[in-house]
């Protein structure tokens, strides 16, 4: 089951440049929250604050809190946080030297799971969940980089799901995919919310409209507006949101 997540007053910096300004956002359990906004407005930075990836960049720092259920993620061990909050990146990044199987099992092995049957069971389960099992079951030992990019991205999703996270962060997961792979991925995202809390960064407004329950609009590191997706797209309360959605330049 997913757990609700809340970001409270996040300020994020790269060296001395402030990227996010006092962003607070609630992300509901078992729902898809979409984050939209122009390039460079801080969407990825925000997402990376949620699983403490932000602090892995040299010179990056942040203030504020992220709460999952009732746990303060910034009071936890960062490594532990990343096992609870999974992430898929904008470009498929399977581990280049590992097979399909080993890619999916990587996170499990990092967690000390060694029993072969348990690994096989979990790998099969998440590959089925990401609609990959039938496509790859005969070549699990082949290098993952030989898959098509759509398959690679679903593999990366499976890899994240294998750890049974509570939250799945998706940073423009379809940005390098062709339309049919994109559609397939969107269907998967719809299904994900049965089990997880999903946060989706996207440039594609139609995509947000199709899959998200809640949408948040970012501009220049500020959260401008958040609400039910249908409201944001049909009746935004801020003119800057309206300008962005209708494609008007401010």
């Amino acid at each position, binding site marked *: 089951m997913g757990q609700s997540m809340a970001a409270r007053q996040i300020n994020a910096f790269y060296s001395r440049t402030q990227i996010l300004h006092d962003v607070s956002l609630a992300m509901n359990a078992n729902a898809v929250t979409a984050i939209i906004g122009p390039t460079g407005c801080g969407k990825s930075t925000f997402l990376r604050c949620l699983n403490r990836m932000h602090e892995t960049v040299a010179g990056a720092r942040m203030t504020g809190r992220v709460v999952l259920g009732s746990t303060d993620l910034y009071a936890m061990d960062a490594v532990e946080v990343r096992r609870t909050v999974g992430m898929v990146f904008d470009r498929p990044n399977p581990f280049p030297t590992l097979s399909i199987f080993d890619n999916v099992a990587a996170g499990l092995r*990092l967690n000390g799971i060694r029993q072969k049957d348990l690994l096989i069971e979990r790998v099969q389960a998440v590959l089925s969940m990401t609609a990959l099992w039938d496509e790859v079951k005969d070549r699990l030992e082949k290098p993952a980089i030989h898959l098509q990019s759509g398959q690679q991205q679903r593999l*990366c999703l499976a890899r994240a799901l294998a750890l049974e996270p509570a939250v799945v962060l998706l940073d423009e997961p379809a940005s390098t995919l062709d339309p049919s792979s994109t559609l397939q991925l969107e269907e998967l995202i719809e299904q994900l919310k049965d089990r997880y809390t999903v946060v989706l960064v996207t440039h594609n407004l139609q995509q947000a409209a199709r899959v998200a329950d809640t949408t948040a609009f970012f501009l220049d590191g500020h959260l401008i507006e958040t609400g039910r997706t249908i409201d944001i797209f049909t009746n935004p309360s801020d003119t800057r949101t309206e300008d962005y959605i209708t494609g008007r330049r401010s």
Partner: protein
Amino acid sequence: MKYKGLRLRKWKDRAFFVLLMLATALALFPLLQILVEATIRGVPGFKVSFFTQLPAPVGIVGGMGNAIVGSLLIVGLASAIATPIGVCTGIYLSEYAPVRYARVLRFLTDIWFGVPTILVGLLVYGTVVLSMKGFSAWAGAISLAFIMVPTLIRTTERMLALIPAIVREGALALGASPTQTVFLFVLPAATRGLITGVVLAVARALGETAPLLFTAFGNNFWQSGLSSPIAALPLQIFLYATSPYPVWQAQAWTGALTLLSIVVVLHAFAHFLTRGEGLS
């Protein structure tokens, strides 16, 4: 509309192209000459005895067997010393060092890389040779290791930099610790590149002569231990090439061709390892 000066621009373009080609030809010519010369002069001496016999006075059939073994021994020893140091420093530089340290370290490595090899020999002479009270295989190996380390640091860092950042991010996002990320995900992806780096460093060390002059010194007999002076191919070549005897001079060419062949094979191997990856 007529473009003014178009003809002139085209002409300049062509002239520049010819100039570049000329410079390239000028650069390649000496290399070609070395290859041809070494082959023509060296091949006649390729006999079994050359590889199995000790150096002998003029008139007696001799070879460079001990020098070949000596070179392999010194370079092997040097690699065993330099590889862990160079590769680990390269890993630290690429994966761990804070930006400011990295910049300083990189600068130092560049200086180290530029230290004249004769100076390296002097340094090792002043420390190792004097304190061990004699020339030795150890001294030779240490001076070669000193020359290999900066090469290894540079190539290791470069090879690791070629592993995309998204591989590291992927591992970190799965809950790998920074050290797990480096050792379980980044290094395995860079293995072939790292081996290439070691091979290239070995190739460079094999041809070094200056630092061996007053460390390994040379030896006319088979090696009996690491603490005595040791023969090396470049030293033997130097000795024979500068001798007044045509027989020795011919052997120097054969020795040079042997050395050249080993280096070419090593480079070909390195190239083969990283083919299609844009690594070397």
